[in-house]
Every structure is written in structure tokens, then in C-alpha cells.
């Protein structure tokens, strides 16, 4: 068994930052009663300006909003504790501190989303430990390659999602969880486990949660114990007698001797996520950034479900409460975020907003089985068919379903119906009939002076009396004034020539 523990030290902040158009602007999460709100977490830009957790909101705002002076004697601000030393060197511009209330519920939501993401690597994902995820990857290692490669992939995808993290892989989830307290990137197997755990300081070893009535940590410290290794060295009977069964059990879990019962996360098989705007958005272009984010999250979700989407819906929450729906249908099951974005963008180019948009919801009610086609494995015709399918999809997404037309031969005499309206049954016999021009002009045009000579004809086309679209025409191959070959007709017994096609 190989268990990965991912620890997210800044989950609340980074979850909130993902929703902001400029994550580099000063931003902080605030907490506490309305009269005494304090900073709970701050992003880098805010920390550089001296904002620290625990500060009163008003104070932190003053740090960010006051103009920053270039001159080193900008003394009035220096009373800020831990103020950034490099403040004097930066330009004098000030940026307002943006804040949002800390929301424990949203942290949990993010953790569940990340669990869904991790589900892409493992069927055993647990949210057992706060701020962390543990999941079993032994079987994934067979599929996805050795641990360093999987580790790089996990880190890469988390980086893309914008979550800082620490991770450790260990033979059991309990050990992984405590080791990630002090390590990042540590990989231990059965043999190395005991020694890795032995060096762990007791206050980092997850002992606090063993027994809420007794402070085991304090008891151990008073007894002179510093590190886990010292406890491992004691005879077990003595350990149990002096410190209770809870500690015994915890140590057993860490060493993998005592199985840990975990609840496993089961993701929901549909996707719905909303992006709220601070300011109403008036143009489609303004939706590009949130759309990209939402599609990224959709893609992560789909990978976790081992599924794709064939269609999804965008809902624009408009000012005034109404909702505009845009359905996006794909020709094939997709889940690659860039492909989804390209297709959605092409689709949106043809959409007019019905009003200022306050929120954007991406809704994928049904997932489809996704069979990834490995491009490099396909050869010749299969590869070409795949490329054609992708091109077809791209053209239809941008130009609309009706722009890309097939050529279908119908058994119908009237040229307009045969070519333009697709009436009648499909022609089955490939027998040669009278000659037809390569091009049909959409509507016959009067062309009396342009025909200089009739080269072949007439061919009487008389049809359609049964559906009211009856015609009675004599068609000729004619030479145009400039030498081109045209298909023209006149009605028997009447004046006037009409151009109806070209012999290319």
C-alpha cells in the first residue's frame, strides 16, 4: 500500500483567490464579529505590504491603501509591526486591499473538489484529516509510471489549479499524514518508515487528537519524551499502562500495524459551478476569464470521474433576475480544457448577451464515457478520421451547424429541390441522366441579353404539380457573352431567359 497525503496550508485563501480576476492584487480573508474583524489570511501582495493574520481589518486596509512613498523617511507607517522592509523601494502607487469573509463551508467545498480531482488517481480518497487529503496510489503507480513521475504530475496539476501544497508518500495514511507536517516530497517505504517516524517531534505527531479528555502530549513531555522514536523504544505493555490504549493505537496506526478505517470520498456524477461577478459584465469578452476557470474545473472533475461531456450549458444570470441559457453541444465526447474552451469560445461568438451578466454557471448534467484516443497510437486512416472529426467540430462550432453541408443526391427533377432543399428520396441508381451543371445559382436570374448562343437543349423539366411547386421549363446549355458555359431556361411559349447554373 502506498498512501499519498496532500496538505493544503492555504486552502481557504487560494480557493477564494481562484475566483478573483487578478490574484496578484492585495487580498485578504477576514474573520470575526462585524465590529472586530481581523485578517485571517492574506495573499503575497498583501503580505508584502505588511498585512499579517490577526491584524484588525482597518489597520490592514490602512497599510495597503495609504500611498507608498519612495522616500525612505516615510516614517508614519513604520509603526506597523513586521512591516515589509522593502516598502521604500517600491513605487508610490497604492492598491486597495480587497477582502472577503472567511467561509469554512467553502473550504470544505474546495476540499471535496480536490478529493474529486484526486479520484482521478485513486479509487480510495479520504477526507478523514482536516486540511488534507489522503489517497492510495499503489495501483495508479502501475498505470501512471514510477512515483517521481506521478509526483511531478500531482504537483503540476495542483500548481495549475493554484493550490500550494505539501505531499508525502508512505505505507499507510496515518504515517503519511504526520510526516507531511514536517516533510515535503518525502517518499518512504516499509523499511524506511520506522526511522522516518522516529525522528518526528511529539508535538508534530498528531497526538493531540487521540484523547480529548487527557492532554497526552503534555503528559509525555513532562515524562521527558521528545520524539516518537523514544516511545517506540519502550515495551508496549509499559506504554499502554502509563499512557493508555489511545496512544498505543495511534502508534500502531502510524506503524501500519493497526488498520485505519477511513471513509472514502465518492464524487457526484454531475457538474454545476457558478462564478459570481462583482461588477456586471456587458460583453462576451468579459466572460473569457471565468469561462476558462470553470472549464478547467470541469475538466479536472471529468478526469476524476473518468468521463467526458458531450454537451454542457452556460447560464448567464442577468441583471433583473432573468437567466439566459446557451447550450453547447459537441460532436464528440471531450474533456480537454483547451479544446472545450476553444469550442465554447467559437460558440459564444455567435451569441448576443441579453443584458448585463451578474453570474456565470457552467452546468454539465450528464457525463459520457470517455475513451481517450492516443494520437500517437493511431496510424493512417484512423488518425486522419480523427483529425477530420476535430476539424469538423471546429468548423461547426464557429460557423454553425448549417454552414458545413454535405453533398446528397436526391431523386427529384426540380433543380432547386434536388440541390437546395434536399427534397425527395435519395437517388439510388447511378445511371447517367441528362447532363447537369456543376453549380446551381441559388435563385434563377433573368439574363436576356447575356446569352449569345444555345449549344445544347432543350431539356424539358416539368414537375411538382402535386405539391404546388410546379414548374415547366426548357433548359439549355448556352454560351455566355464572355465565353462561359451557362445553364439557362425559358418557359415554353413565353419570353425571357433565366440563368440557373454554370458548367464549370
Amino acid at each position: 500500500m502506498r498512501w499519498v497525503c496532500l496538505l493544503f496550508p492555504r486552502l481557504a485563501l487560494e480557493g477564494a483567490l481562484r475566483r478573483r480576476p487578478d490574484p496578484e492584487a492585495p487580498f485578504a480573508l477576514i474573520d470575526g464579529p462585524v465590529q472586530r474583524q481581523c485578517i485571517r489570511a492574506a495573499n503575497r501582495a498583501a503580505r508584502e505590504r505588511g498585512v499579517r493574520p490577526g491584524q484588525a481589518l482597518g489597520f490592514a486596509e490602512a497599510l495597503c491603501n495609504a500611498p507608498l512613498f519612495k522616500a525612505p523617511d516615510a516614517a508614519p507607517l513604520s509603526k506597523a509591526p513586521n512591516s515589509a522592509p522593502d516598502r521604500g523601494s517600491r513605487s508610490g502607487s497604492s492598491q486597495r486591499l480587497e477582502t472577503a469573509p472567511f467561509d469554512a463551508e467553502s473550504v470544505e467545498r474546495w476540499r471535496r473538489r480536490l478529493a474529486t480531482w484526486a479520484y482521478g488517481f485513486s479509487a480510495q480518497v479520504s477526507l478523514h484529516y482536516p486540511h488534507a487529503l489522503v489517497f492510495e496510489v499503489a495501483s495508479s503507480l502501475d498505470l501512471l509510471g514510477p512515483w517521481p513521475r506521478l509526483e511531478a504530475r500531482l504537483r503540476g496539476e495542483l500548481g495549475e489549479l493554484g493550490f500550494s501544497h505539501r505531499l508525502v508518500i508512505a505505507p499507510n495514511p496515518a504515517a503519511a499524514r504526520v510526516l507531511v507536517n514536517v516533510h515535503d516530497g518525502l517518499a518512504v517505504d516499509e523499511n524506511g518508515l520506522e526511522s522516518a517516524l522516529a525522528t518526528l517531534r511529539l508535538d508534530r505527531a498528531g497526538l493531540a487528537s487521540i484523547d480529548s479528555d487527557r492532554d497526552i502530549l503534555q503528559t509525555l513531555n513532562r515524562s521527558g519524551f521528545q520524539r516518537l522514536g523514544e516511545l517506540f523504544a519502550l515495551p508496549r505493555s509499559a506504554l499502554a499502562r502509563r499512557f493508555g490504549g489511545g496512544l498505543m493505537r495511534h502508534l500502531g496506526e502510524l506503524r501500519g500495524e493497526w488498520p485505519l478505517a477511513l471513509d472514502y470520498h465518492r464524487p457526484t456524477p454531475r457538474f454545476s459551478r457558478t462564478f459570481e461577478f462583482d461588477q456586471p459584465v456587458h460583453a462576451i469578452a468579459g466572460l473569457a476569464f471565468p469561462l476558462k476557470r470553470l472549464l478547467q474545473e470541469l475538466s479536472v472533475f471529468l478526469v476524476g470521474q473518468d468521463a467526458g461531456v458531450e454537451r454542457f450549458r452556460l447560464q448567464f444570470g442577468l441583471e433583473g433576475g432573468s437567466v439566459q441559457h446557451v447550450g453547447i453541444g459537441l460532436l464528440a465526447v471531450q474533456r480537454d480544457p483547451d479544446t472545450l474552451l476553444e469550442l465554447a469560445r467559437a460558440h459564444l461568438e455567435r451569441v448576443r448577451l441579453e443584458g448585463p451578466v451578474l453570474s456565470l454557471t457552467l452546468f454539465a448534467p450528464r457525463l459520457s464515457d470517455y475513451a481517450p484516443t492516443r494520437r500517437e497510437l493511431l496510424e493512417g486512416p484512423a488518425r486522419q478520421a480523427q483529425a477530420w472529426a476535430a476539424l469538423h467540430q471546429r468548423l461547426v462550432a464557429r460557423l454553425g451547424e448549417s454552414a458545413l453541408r454535405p453533398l446528397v443526391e436526391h431523386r427529384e427533377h426540380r433543380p432547386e429541390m434536388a440541390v437546395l432543399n434536399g427534397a425527395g428520396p435519395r437517388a439510388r441508381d447511378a445511371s447517367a441522366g441528362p447532363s447537369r451543371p456543376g453549380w446551381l445559382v441559388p435563385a434563377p436570374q433573368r439574363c436576356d441579353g447575356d446569352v449569345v448562343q444555345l449549344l445544347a437543349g432543350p431539356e424539358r423539366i416539368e414537375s411538382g404539380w402535386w405539391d404546388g411547386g410546379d414548374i415547366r421549363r426548357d433548359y439549355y446549355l448556352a454560351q455566355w457573352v464572355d465565353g462561359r458555359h451557362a445553364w439557362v431556361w425559358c418557359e415554353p411559349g413565353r419570353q425571357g431567359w433565366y440563368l440557373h447554373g454554370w458548367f464549370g
Partner: protein
Amino acid sequence: MPAATPLDALLPGGGWPPAAISELLSSGAGNGELALLWPVLSRLTRQGRPIVLVSPPGAPYPAAWRRAGVVLEQCHWLDVQGREALWATEQCLRAGCCGAVVAWLAQADGRLMRRLQVAAASGDTLAFVHRPLAKVAEASPAPLRLRLHRHAELEVLKCRGGLAPSRRIAFGGGA
């Protein structure tokens, strides 16, 4: 790519230049452009390669195309105009999966033709671009430029890698 017309003998590569634009200049539809293209299009579609017509001068008449030997299932036409037509042509050329792309682009200038030429080269796709006679005097990056005169006669304006024959060539018979 053999053109299956008297042209083959005259062109340096023995046919249409592959992975490049062949430019056809004419006063409009009906100058025998299909008699010129149908042989190569029918061969490509019979090999199972899709072909795309971008903003053709009229609706292709299926019966006529089938009779010319073109496999209709492989034949697609895009009824779009203006910028969308240019975009679509470039996409089709770049995708590298089309047997041939035949486009009618009166709006394309020299810069756009260069862009399409690059797309045809990178997608390794046979391309035909029709433009009006007004563009005859304009410089063009297409390695082969043909001017279609009245029905079924053409003049080679430019062919890279060879001397352009000065006489007019009659090709393909009939309608």
C-alpha cells in the same frame, strides 16, 4: 499530384504542386474550372480523403459531381462569406486531414494568400484558390497561377521551378 489533363506534361512536378496553393484566376464560374479540378477531386475522394469547398460560386449540383466520379460522401461545402471563409480555409488547410481544399476567395489579398500558402505547406494539403481577374496583376505567393479563358482554355501565368508555356492550353472537353 497528377492533374489528369494536358497540364501534367507542362508542369514541373508533373501535376498540381502538393502542399501548396494553385491559384486559378477567372471571370467567374463556368470557365471550365470543374473540368480542370474534377479529375483530381474524384481521385482523392475515391481514396477516402475528404475535400472541402469553401464559399463556392453556387451550390454544387450533386448529380453532376457524382457523374464526374467524385464520391459525394467525401465532399463537403462551406456556405460562408468574408472573414469566416478565410478562417475556414486556413483551418482546413492546417488540419492536414483534407485531401484538397478548394476555395473561392475574391476578398483575399497578397498577405492573406501568403498566410494560406503557409497553412497549406504546414498542413501538407493540396489547395486551390479561385480569385477574380482583377488580381492577375497582383503579386501572389502561389507557386502555380493559372488564368482560365473562356470555356476550357487556360494560360499558365506562373509556375515555380519551370518555364511558363506561353501558349494557351485547351483542357478537358465538353461541359
